[in-house]
């Protein structure tokens, strides 16, 4: 690529390759831009809008926006961080995010990003939606209270696992995650702990059973360092070592949770 393929991000020169979006180039250069629905292993999606930056003065999602030579990108500014905080607050009030009782706490990207953006309260009135918990699967549980509709599990299951275990249904504020079973239960899908989809949830929806709270407070991913200093937190398996479900007994009978 030619030398002219650079843009500036908060004054810093960032090189980029053809095809890279702003956040991809920034990440490659070690510069953090807050994000939730973006995961470097997947095609950018552009829905959470946390990665919003100002590119040549215009606000845009940096995960889907391609840079142009000499483009001036602003990210870590008071104005944009205020907006990101408001978006986080929207996600917090839209669902039921009770961190103290969540196994993902300390390893949760939503929580860590909110720390990074100094979110001190949800600010808006809570929606307190009535959402389900699906404990039907012997090894994994789904707590829909925490879903932020990033669709990483949808993409992982469809594009990597070739399974379509997850999908979004509904519209607008009634959008919600569903699973590929007539019963609506995870146990009745072909979901497996070996699936990529089992390991991409940035929040605490898709959780492996019986391994929660094993890492002491103080030693969890984002206790030690803020998300901005944690390289590529996605894809990590923060709730313990990845299980080998092949060694687990089959589960002919399953119970709902």
């Amino acid at each position: 690529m030619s030398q002219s393929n650079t843009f500036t991000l908060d004054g810093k020169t960032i090189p980029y390759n053809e095809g890279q979006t702003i956040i991809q180039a920034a990440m490659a250069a070690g510069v953090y831009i807050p994000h939730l629905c973006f995961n470097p292993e997947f095609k950018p999606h552009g829905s959470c809008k946390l990665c919003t930056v100002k590119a040549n003065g215009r606000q845009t999602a940096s995960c889907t926006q391609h840079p142009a030579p000499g483009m001036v990108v602003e990210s870590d500014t008071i104005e944009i961080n205020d907006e990101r905080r408001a978006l986080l607050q929207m996600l917090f009030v839209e669902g039921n995010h009770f961190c103290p009782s969540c196994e993902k706490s300390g390893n949760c990207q939503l929580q860590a990003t909110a720390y990074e953006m100094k979110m001190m309260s949800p600010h808006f009135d809570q929606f307190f939606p009535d959402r389900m918990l699906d404990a039907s699967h012997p090894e994994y549980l789904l707590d829909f209270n925490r879903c932020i509709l990033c669709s990483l599990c949808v993409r992982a299951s469809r594009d990597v696992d070739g399974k379509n275990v997850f999908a979004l249904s509904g519209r607008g504020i009634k959008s919600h995650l569903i699973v590929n079973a007539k019963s609506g239960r995870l146990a009745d899908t072909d979901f497996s702990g070996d699936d990529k989809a089992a390991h991409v949830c940035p929040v605490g929806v898709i959780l492996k059973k019986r391994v929660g709270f094993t890492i002491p407070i103080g030693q969890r991913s984002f206790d030690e360092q803020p998300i901005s200093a944690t390289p590529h937190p996605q894809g990590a398996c923060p709730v313990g070592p990845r299980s080998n479900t092949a060694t687990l007994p089959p589960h002919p009978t399953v119970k709902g949770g």
Partner: protein
Amino acid sequence: MNTPVKAKLKVATTSLAGCFGCHMSFLDIDERLLDLLQLVEFDRSPLTDIKHCGPCDIGIIEGGLCNAENVHVLREFRANCKILIALGACAINGGLPAQRNHLPLTTILEEVYHAQHGLVDGFIPNDPELPLPLDKVHPIHEVVKIDYFIPGCPPSSDAIWKVLTDLLAGKEPELGHGLIHYD
């Protein structure tokens, strides 16, 4: 030191629908309490057992709102305190008590006083002395204006100390990495 004696700031605290864990964490500031007492004087608080708060500089609220009494106390604090601080998860987002919010209150009262095993002639207490429960548990900022929030379940004593000392120093309180946490 013989600096002129400044009027001490008045601080009031209370626990609404909370577990007093935030107050325990407050006490966890340990010997720094002595430094704090140089600067502040406690009005209504579980620490003083004063029942109603007078004009105060800072009010600290633990817990959310689950009943009518919580609302009265919160309003008393808002009316009397120049600065109101929401302390801990329950005050900030309803916390654990708010996990009843997906159930109708009628179902909950039915379950607790009528339906549960062993309750033959259970009745729902109706003594006027008792505060009535709200249909939903609310974070306190949904009912009165809150000036500052210290998240955590409970917030660490260091976080509480940092916010209070920042405020006493006339600074905007700010919590850095490690001090701001929601669990």
